[in-house]
């Protein structure tokens, strides 16, 4: 269990993390999302005791990281996959890390095997591809067989096979009851990997919810209704609390689920030709939520084109 409590980090005038609070639970893969510069990496560094919070705290199993007696056995971390001395072989790189944690040398071969790097164990890491670095970083994180894994952008630079591998790997770790937190600025990546997401923008919490809930709550979700009785059906729907807009022959209904709309149509004996829930893609929902929280915005119009309307930041607990 990771617990972030009112965490704040300031660098002079800049606020990187702004009164952030959330929990990461065991047994599921939790995605940590936000645009570049949202404060994800800073939060992870504070979690690992590398950066000191300006205020607030972050604890791992109830203690701050610096006070864990054998930290590598509780938390495994991958912050920057390329953090390695190019002159070391993969085996040597893992060996010095293992020794720092008091972990037996035999463990090095096990984790190399686990990430599929056994064949290149004797090669200098300076010649590794980014994908190999990512696997090496995961091997280092797994050295202490930790119950909590923290990975910063682990799919960056991986080929499709590598991405598939890491997804399966993380889901298995979560299925074993471990806590897995992985950050990404790519929403589409989370859709396939995470069960739960924590979204931040400009250091503030935007959403803390399940993936399904996240898309459902987004205003981009609607139900498309085609009916020859549209003109009479619309006021009924509005009376039930829906918002209606028109699109050619169809009604675009927001605020009501498809089953409720169908029931209303049956009740009032309106004929339906089409009743289609349209889910906003996770990407669109993400863009909508983090709009205005991006540190650097390119063309603002590009973002608004994807998801019109600004949704007020919402806190969704489950």
């Amino acid at each position, binding site marked *: 269990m990771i617990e972030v409590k009112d965490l704040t980090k300031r660098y002079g005038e800049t606020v990187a993390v702004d009164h952030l609070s959330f929990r990461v639970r065991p047994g599921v893969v939790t995605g940590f999302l936000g645009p570049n510069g949202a404060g994800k990496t800073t939060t992870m560094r504070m979690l690992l005791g590398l950066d000191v919070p300006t205020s607030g705290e972050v604890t791992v199993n109830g203690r701050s990281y610096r006070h864990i007696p054998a930290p590598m056995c509780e938390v495994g971390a991958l912050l920057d996959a390329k953090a390695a001395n190019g002159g070391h072989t993969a085996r040597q790189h893992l060996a010095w890390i293992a020794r720092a944690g008091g972990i037996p040398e035999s463990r090095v071969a096990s984790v190399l095997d686990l990430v599929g790097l056994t064949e290149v164990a004797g090669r200098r890491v300076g010649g590794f591809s980014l994908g190999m670095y990512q696997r090496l970083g995961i091997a280092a994180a797994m050295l202490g067989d930790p119950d909590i894994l923290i990975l910063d952008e682990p799919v960056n630079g991986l080929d499709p096979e590598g991405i598939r591998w890491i997804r399966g790997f993380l889901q*298995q770790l979560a299925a074993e009851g471990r806590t897995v937190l992985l950050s990404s600025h790519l929403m589409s990546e989370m859709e396939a990997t995470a069960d739960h997401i924590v979204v931040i923008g400009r250091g503030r919490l935007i959403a803390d919810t399940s993936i399904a809930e996240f898309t459902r709550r987004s205003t981009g979700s609607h139900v498309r209704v085609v009916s020859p009785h549209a003109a009479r059906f619309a006021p009924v729907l509005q009376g039930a609390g829906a918002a209606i807009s028109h699109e050619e022959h169809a009604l675009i209904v927001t605020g009501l689920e498809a089953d409720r709309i169908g029931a209303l149509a049956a009740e009032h004996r309106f004929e339906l030709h089409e009743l289609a829930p349209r889910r906003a893609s996770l990407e669109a929902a993400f863009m909508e939520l983090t709009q205005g929280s991006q540190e650097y915005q390119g063309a603002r119009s590009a973002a608004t084109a994807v998801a019109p309307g600004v949704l007020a930041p919402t806190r969704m607990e489950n």
Partner: protein
Amino acid sequence: MTTATISANTRRMRGAVNRDTRFANTLASEWLKLATLRSTYITLGLGYLLSVATSAIVGIALGSTRDTWSGDISPITASMVGTVFGLIVYSVFGVLTVSREYASGTMRLTLTATPDRRQVFLAKLTLVTAIVTVAGVATTVSMFAISQAVFSATGMPTASFTDGDALHMVLGLGLAMPFFPIMGMAFGMLLRSTAGGITTALGLLWLPQIFGEFVPTWFQEHILSLLPSNGIDSVTVSHIESTPAYSAPLLGAAIAAAWLLASVGAAYIAFQRRDA
């Protein structure tokens, strides 16, 4: 790969972890980190060879031109001329032990594995001191031995370790060798930069040579004498060859110690407090 295989692969090592001797683990890890890098051997080897080769070549040059020398040359000081090359390269080694970790990003791995920064600091300090002390004494003893052999072959006056002055200088310079490398490590930690650390350490080392002996005597006595290199030389060299910039040995030792304490102390505080 199935769930079962990850567990089978990992769960067996619990309990095998050595949690009790944390500093020993840190020290062993830092040692392994250096001992498995080719650049460690290249750097240290280069420092040793450059020093010994310089002393040997200068010895040969002195021997072959001795008829044209009017004054007498001390076979002790003449044998130690290569020291400065070792000092430069070993100082670079000291800077690199830290700055390389900031450049490659491994400092974060180091501090994630060992969150207690006092341990990491002490382990690095211990290793730089121990390694350069061994390398330093090996360097000065080798320089002395080779030079005396050259002097003897060319019919020059020689010295031996049974000579107290010779032993004092050879061991003194060897044991003082870690001084600048330790300061280099401290500057590498303060500046987090290889170039910055090397420039600062070597700048301090070279300052007396930059001013040379052309400045007024009072400036040498009161200003240059406060530089760390002159402080050290007051202890290791002044009993044979003195300049106005040298202090009494005890005062010189105090000056050098003050420099070491200030730079290492500042590095320690910065390392403790700064975000990694």
